């Protein structure tokens, strides 16, 4: 175990005097051993958060996190950082409310500046079906301490002056708006790095450039460890947090899961002066955006519909998203776009996450996170609880694989355009 070097204004000042040459590495890179108590596959948000809560809440530090590429190089670094709890089901809302609250306190908890910004999300409603959906959500969310507030169109236009489209003569005139004040954005790298640093300081071993190629089962069928190009690593508990590649791995052990891998994309504009201070979500047209601290507009759209393991953006999805954007924000036609990208994620049959034991003893999966950035704190804590105790905590209990067997789905599809 190492002492974590704390970050503060004072430590910044002190290190400035030494020309910033004295900083310790944020996390350790110990040699890879051939046995651990538990292995977490995937150093994304969920894997690293689980490692942190395992050490912090359950005192389990004989843990290896194995990552194919580099730490925080997966979807945790490729998403649009919308953190919100405006879900629809009794099972989902308490989980996301908790996760949003954990995110609110994460900077302090991890001693790492998350650049957390409570932004408020505004849903622009352009069909009566969507208006009714938001009313229904509001009623359910009220029960669980999440928030939706209706505002009239005039108030929407006052709050988002750049929103000049969607007038009375347009194809889909704006009918109203719903305001979700809990929503936030923050810095995704900080989430990965902050969890990694704190977990590493408590003794968890993070191994980058260590792809798992196969799951190993013992003669009794239970999980025994994993195969990597750096050798076999054994553990009685293996947890997968590999976002998009869950089935690729479970199928090496003969386990099929109700997941489809899909591609989700985003793009950013050149940086401009502050123009929108909320997250604007337009579920009827299929576009959402927020402005980053650097001034770039971060814009996302709908998923590519078929299965896809690609990390680029499909031209048709890109065009649909841009045309939706310009319908509501015509002035943005003059913005130059700087970068576009995508990520592949898995989605379960009912579009809710899976945090669960499996039919293979010792094998745990955390998957179906196609909108799971917001879920990293509570999902990571839930995964840690499952690894440490073998039982789900109450917040993730509804997201077990049993629900498929019992046809007891938690249908959450089409929540918003924003993931």
């Amino acid at each position, binding site marked *: 175990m190492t002492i974590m070097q704390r970050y503060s204004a004072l430590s910044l000042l002190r290190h400035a005097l030494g020309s910033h040459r004295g900083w310790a590495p944020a996390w350790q890179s110990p040699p890879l051993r051939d046995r651990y108590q538990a292995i977490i596959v995937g150093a994304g948000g969920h894997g690293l958060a689980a490692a942190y809560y395992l050490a912090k809440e359950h005192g389990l530090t004989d843990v290896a996190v194995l990552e194919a590429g580099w730490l925080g190089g997966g979807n945790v670094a490729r998403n649009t950082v919308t953190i919100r709890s405006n879900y629809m089901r009794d099972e989902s809302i308490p989980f996301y409310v908790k996760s949003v609250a954990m995110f609110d306190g994460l900077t302090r908890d991890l001693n790492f500046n998350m650049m957390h910004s409570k932004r408020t999300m505004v849903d622009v409603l352009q069909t009566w079906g969507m208006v009714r959906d938001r009313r229904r959500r509001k009623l359910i969310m009220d029960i669980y301490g999440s928030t939706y507030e209706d505002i009239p169109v005039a108030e929407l236009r006052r709050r988002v002056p750049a929103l000049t489209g969607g007038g009375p003569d347009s194809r889909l005139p704006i009918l109203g708006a719903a305001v979700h004040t809990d929503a936030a954005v923050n810095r995704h790298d900080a989430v990965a790095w902050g969890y990694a640093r704190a977990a590493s300081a408590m003794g968890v071993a993070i191994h980058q450039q260590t792809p798992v190629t196969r799951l190993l089962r013992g003669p009794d069928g239970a999980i025994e460890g994993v195969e990597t190009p750096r050798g076999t690593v054994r553990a009685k508990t293996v947890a997968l947090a590999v976002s998009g590649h869950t089935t690729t791995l479970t199928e090496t052990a003969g386990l*099929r899961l109700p997941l*489809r891998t899909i591609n989700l994309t985003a793009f950013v504009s050149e940086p401009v002066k502050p123009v929108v201070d909320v997250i604007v979500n337009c579920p009827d047209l299929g576009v959402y955006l927020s402005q980053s601290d650097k001034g770039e507009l971060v814009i996302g759209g709908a998923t590519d519909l078929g*299965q*896809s393991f690609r990390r680029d953006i499909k*031209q*048709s999805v890109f065009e649909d998203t841009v045309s939706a954007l310009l319908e509501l924000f015509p002035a943005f036609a003059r913005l130059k776009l700087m970068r576009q990208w995508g990520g592949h994620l898995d989605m379960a049959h009912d579009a809710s996450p899976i945090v669960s034991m499996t039919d293979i003893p010792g094998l745990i999966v955390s998957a179906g996170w196609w909108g799971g950035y917001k879920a990293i704190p509570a999902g990571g804590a839930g995964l840690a609880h499952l690894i440490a105790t073998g039982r789900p905590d109450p917040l993730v209990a509804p997201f077990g694989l049993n629900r498929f*067997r019992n046809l007891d789905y938690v249908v959450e599809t089409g929540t918003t355009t924003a993931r």
Partner: protein
Amino acid sequence: MLLIDCPFCGPRNESEFSFGGPALTPRPSDPAAVSDADWVDWLTVPPNPMGLVEERWWHARGCGSWLTICRHTVTHEITEVRLGR
């Protein structure tokens, strides 16, 4: 953008089509003979390879036929297009 070679209309842009989901294996013909677990599998567990999948596309803004295509999930290459299932 996919280019789907409709048997009636020739190669057409994906934007003329609507996605109809993964092509399921045929529904078990004798329901009573299938175990609960196998039914759930048939309903909820699609093949998810880094490779070829079969899926349904409707040429909604073309001739209106339902097609089944065989498409690679990494390269997007379409190796087969056929009418119906």
